[in-house]
C-alpha cells in the first residue's frame, strides 16, 4: 500500500515536471507565460520599488552612523585632492572622454528604451535582473543595457512583456572590450562570481595602466563601440606568461539597479 502511494506521488511529480519542460520548450506554454507576465509585471514593478525604498531607508540609517567617520575621512581626502591639481593634464583627458560619452548617443542615433527592474537573481551563482520591457517594445537578445551610459549587461532572454539581463559581473557574461591605452588593447570582459570584472588574454607586450578607460570594442553584433564600462583597477603581469589579466572597476553599484536603458542599435549606427 505504501509503495503504491509513493509510486503515485513520484509519478505525478515526474509527469508534471516533464509536461512543464516539454510545453515550455515547444512554446505551448508561451501564451500562458505571456498573460501571466503581463498581469504580474505592474505588481512586480510596484513591489520591487517598495523593497528598493526599504533598502534606501536602511542605507540612509546606516549612512547617518557613518557620517562622523566619513566627515573625518573626507577632510583627509580634501587634502589629498590638492595633489590632483598637479595632474591637470590627466583631468583634461578625462574631460574630453566624458564629452565624447555625452554626445555618443546623439551622434550615432542609438535609441535608448528606459526599463524598470522588476526582479533580480538571488542565489550566489547568478547575477541578472528582470526588466519590464520585452518583445512588444522591440527588445531583442544581445542588446546592451546601460545606466547613465555605462554598460551593465546584455539582454539574454526575452519574453513578450519582460526580458532578462545578464549583468557583466556574472561568471557567464562575456563582452568584447577595448582598453583606451596606447595600443588600444582588446580583450574579453568576464564577471568574477558577481564580485568584480576581469579582462583576460591581453598580450604581455601591451602596456595597461591603472586608470585606463575600458569601453566596448564594437565586435559584437548588437553592442556599439565606445560604450563606457569602467576603469582599470589592477593589472596582473607575470614574467614569462603570454598574457596578462586586468581587473576593471565599474562606477555602477550592481546591487542598486532600479532603472536602466536598453540600447536599440541598428546596423548603420554600429558602423559609425
Amino acid at each position, binding site marked *: 500500500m505504501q509503495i503504491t502511494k509513493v509510486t503515485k506521488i513520484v509519478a505525478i511529480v515526474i509527469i508534471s515536471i516533464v509536461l512543464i519542460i516539454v510545453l515550455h520548450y515547444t512554446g505551448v506554454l508561451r501564451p500562458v507565460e505571456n498573460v501571466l507576465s503581463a498581469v504580474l509585471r505592474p505588481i512586480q514593478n510596484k*513591489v*520591487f520599488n517598495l523593497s528598493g525604498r526599504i533598502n534606501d531607508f536602511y542605507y540612509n540609517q546606516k549612512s547617518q552612523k557613518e557620517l562622523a567617520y566619513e566627515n573625518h575621512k573626507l577632510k583627509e581626502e580634501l587634502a589629498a585632492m590638492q595633489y590632483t591639481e598637479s595632474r591637470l593634464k590627466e583631468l583634461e583627458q578625462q574631460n574630453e572622454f566624458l564629452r565624447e560619452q555625452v554626445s555618443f548617443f546623439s551622434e550615432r542615433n542609438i535609441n535608448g528604451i528606459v526599463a524598470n527592474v522588476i526582479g533580480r537573481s538571488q542565489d550566489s551563482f547568478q547575477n541578472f535582473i528582470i526588466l519590464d520591457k520585452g518583445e512588444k517594445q522591440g527588445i531583442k537578445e544581445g542588446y546592451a543595457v546601460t545606466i547613465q551610459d555605462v554598460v551593465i549587461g546584455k539582454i539574454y532572454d526575452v519574453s513578450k512583456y519582460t526580458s532578462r539581463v545578464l549583468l557583466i559581473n556574472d561568471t557567464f557574461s562575456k563582452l568584447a572590450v577595448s582598453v583606451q591605452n596606447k595600443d588600444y588593447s582588446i580583450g574579453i570582459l568576464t564577471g568574477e562570481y558577481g564580485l568584480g570584472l576581469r579582462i583576460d588574454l591581453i598580450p604581455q607586450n601591451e602596456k595597461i595602466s591603472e586608470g585606463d578607460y575600458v569601453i566596448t570594442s564594437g565586435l559584437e553584433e548588437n553592442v556599439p563601440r565606445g560604450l563606457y564600462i569602467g576603469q582599470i583597477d589592477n593589472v596582473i603581469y607575470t614574467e614569462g606568461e603570454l598574457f596578462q589579466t586586468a581587473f576593471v572597476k565599474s562606477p555602477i553599484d550592481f546591487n542598486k539597479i532600479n532603472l536602466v536603458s536598453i540600447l536599440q542599435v541598428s546596423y548603420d549606427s554600429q558602423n559609425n
Partner: protein
Amino acid sequence: MIAKIIKVAVFLFIVFIMQVSFLPGLFYPLNKLNIFIPLLIFFLVLYKENVTMIYAVVFSVFLAISSSVPLVLSILVLPLAISVLIKIYNRFFTNKSIYSLLFLNLLLLLFYQIINTIFFLIYYFYTYKTFTAAVNFSSIFNSFIWQAVLSSIFVFIAFFFVNYLSNRLKTVFIDAT
C-alpha cells in the same frame, strides 16, 4: 472548492511576488532569504508528502523564472532535495517540535544547495568544457550561512504563528498508526 482554489492562488501569488520581486530588492543579507524552503518544511509537517511535492514543483517553476540556468535543470533542484528530505523525515523524525522543524529546514537547505551547485557545475561544464573558475566556494558558503540563519528565524517565527492559529503543531509526537 472554488474558495480553496482562490485561497491557494492568492497564497502562491503572494509567495511568488515576495520571492522574485520583494526579497531580491532588499539589502544584504536579507536578499539571500529563500522562503520556499521553510514553507516546504511546514507543508511537510502539516500536510501529506504529495501536497509538499506538488508545492515543490510549483516553487521550482517560480525559481526557474529567476534563474539563468536552463529550465530543464532548475526545475529539478527543489523536488529532488525535498524527496531526499521526505525519506529522512519518514525514517528518523518522530515529532513536530520546533527543533525538528529547524533541523529539517537546515537539511533541506543543505540538500538544495548541494544539488543546485552540482547542476550549476554541470551547466558550466556543458558551456565552457572546464570547471576552472566555475564557482567561488567562499561566496557560496557565506550565502549558505546567511540563508541558514534567516530561514531558521523564519521557521522560528512561523512555528509560533502557526501554533497560535491552530493546534496542528501542538501534537508532540507524530501518530505512527
